[in-house]
């Protein structure tokens, strides 16, 4: 093949390629693809900022996740316990609760508390002592089922726990789940209780037998477990309970009193987190905007040239902003992937080892990082707009 033919071939291939791809020579994707090294620092800043914001949100959300997971059983049932030195619920209060419309069952319960590992430290968790039929009824309401081992033998120092609790306590069947050596426990068990079965399902729950509880802990307050015919009506029934019982004698442990009260106490922490995140996003946006501005300054001759040959400033702004948007979008996506990978590793190596709950794929964390690319792009757009408005192509191209 001759030189001339080869030469023409180059041009024809370029022409065919450009038309076939319908690619514009000023395409932001082409720019980003060919300037990876130049754009890498900005992308890394975005990745790090996304990771910072997302990981803070994920870790803080682990508090809420812990609360909702540990106390999720209160969506299925409400526990009514005697106050102060009483060992049982006053019959009048029991009757008033029974009279509330929509109540399905009132189950007599006893039991003990075991401790769970949470972000708050050791947290007491009720091991309910109910009859076999009541236990099966509660399991069915909670959508839980026995997945390993067996149910406790009446009178034996045995318990069955949800798999989440088993992971939290890093237990195996046969291990002691509670006993006299428990630290930070509330009304713990004076005898070592062994794990004999594992329950699987959405609700963390723990059972022993009333025969064992009554024999080993005769002074543990007897409580009531109240369920609703319509599970969705349980919050309203719990509120009604608070209205009808003598609250100096009885405490109602419902989803609202447990979870929502904890959430309220955490409001200040969430506010601080939101402020920190807002500051991080703002600082990162400013930093990235400045980086974008520096890149723009480095490319001023390029933009001046394009302006001189008649490309509208609005078109130049569109190209510059599109390039920034591509970098920030890729940076954000990479940041989320990095966050998910690192949080999954942290869950494995840090949180789960300590029995703590964390969701590495937290949607809320994702939502908190969404403003980052938008703010960076908006900031870059504003600064580039100002620079382009003042652009004098001759001054830059001919350095006059």
């Amino acid at each position: 093949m001759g030189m001339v033919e080869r030469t023409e071939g180059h041009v024809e291939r370029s022409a065919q390629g450009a038309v076939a791809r319908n690619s514009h020579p000023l395409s932001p994707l082409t720019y980003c693809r060919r300037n990876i090294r130049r754009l890498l620092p900005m992308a890394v800043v975005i990745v790090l900022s996304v990771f910072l914001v997302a990981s803070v949100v994920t870790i803080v959300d682990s508090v809420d996740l812990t609360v909702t997971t540990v106390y999720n059983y209160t969506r299925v049932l409400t526990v009514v316990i005697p106050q102060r030195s009483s060992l049982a619920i006053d019959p009048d209060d029991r009757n008033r609760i029974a009279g509330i419309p929509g109540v399905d069952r009132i189950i007599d319960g006893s039991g003990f508390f075991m401790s769970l590992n949470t972000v708050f430290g050791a947290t007491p968790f009720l091991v309910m002592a109910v009859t076999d039929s009541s236990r099966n009824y509660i399991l069915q309401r909670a959508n839980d089922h026995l997945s390993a081992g067996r149910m406790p033998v009446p009178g034996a120092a045995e318990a069955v726990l949800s798999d989440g609790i088993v992971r939290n306590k890093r237990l195996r069947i046969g291990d002691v789940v509670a006993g006299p050596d428990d630290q930070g426990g509330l009304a713990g068990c004076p005898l070592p209780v062994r794990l004999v079965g594992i329950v699987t399902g959405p609700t963390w729950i723990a059972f022993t037998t009333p025969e064992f509880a009554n024999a080993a802990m005769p002074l543990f307050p007897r409580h009531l477990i109240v369920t609703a015919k319509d599970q969705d009506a349980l919050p309203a029934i719990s509120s009604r309970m608070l209205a009808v019982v003598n609250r100096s004698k009885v405490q109602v442990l419902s989803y609202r009193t447990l979870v929502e009260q904890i959430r309220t106490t955490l409001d200040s922490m969430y506010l601080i987190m939101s402020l920190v995140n807002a500051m991080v996003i703002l600082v990162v946006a400013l930093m990235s905007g400045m980086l974008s501005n520096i890149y723009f300054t480095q490319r001023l001759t390029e933009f001046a040239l394009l302006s001189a040959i008649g490309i509208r400033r609005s078109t130049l702004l569109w190209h510059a902003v599109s390039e920034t948007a591509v970098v920030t979008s890729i940076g954000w996506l990479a940041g989320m992937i990095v966050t998910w990978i690192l949080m999954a590793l942290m869950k494995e190596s840090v949180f789960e080892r300590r029995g703590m709950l964390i969701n590495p794929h937290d949607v809320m964390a994702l939502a908190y990082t969404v403003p980052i690319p938008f703010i960076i792009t908006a900031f870059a757009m504003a600064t580039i707009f100002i620079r382009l408005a003042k652009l004098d192509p001759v001054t830059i191209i001919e350095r006059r």
Partner: protein
Amino acid sequence: MSVGSETDASERITDDLSAAGVGLAYHDGDTRTDALIDVNVTLPSTGFIGVMGPSGSGKSSLLYVLSGLKRPTTGDVRYRGENLARASSSRLTALRRAHFGFVFQQPWLLGWQTAWENVLDGAPDVDERACERAARVMKDLGIAAFARKMPSQLSGGEKQRVCVARAMLNRPKVIFADEPTASLDHHNGHLVVDMLARYRQEGLVIVVTHDAEMLQDADRILVMRDGRALGWSTPSQTAGVALGG
């Protein structure tokens, strides 16, 4: 192309580019420098026009004013009857895109684009027609072999030829070349000027230079000094004149 509303129909000089009483002053603090003083010039619609003068004579400033890259401080610049001195920035940009081509002193190319893509930057729309035209222009200018090369792989002369191809792509009515040979050696300088000169059949080519030898083939040469247009000359009259640009 539309004509500016401020232009009286009787004043129109169809297809011509003209400057009337044009002055251009640069301000640097309290210091005022008059780059152009009362320049009056009328240019034809086709041909090869040279603008010569020593450094600081205002030849480049005249080019910028005629092309709408600079607004004159005083006077009018008319292109096809439209007064560029009063046109909006967006109108001037559109005019440069549709009617003018530019070759600057430095062979400015976008470093991240191939030579082919740099040439296509001169097209208002990158469509099949523009690609065919780019292929033809590059072939005609003998730079087809550089199509896929990046600017960093090209010599100064090769880059400037790519710039010429970009300027010609859109079949402009006027090509403005500001010292296009200043950064080139003698051989490449002649190559570039020859390419520009060949365009005289299609439109007007205005080449600013201080090197009389580069304008041997020009139809006419405008001589500038101290911001004033001294008058028209011919290549034979300016041959061998060293203006020390």
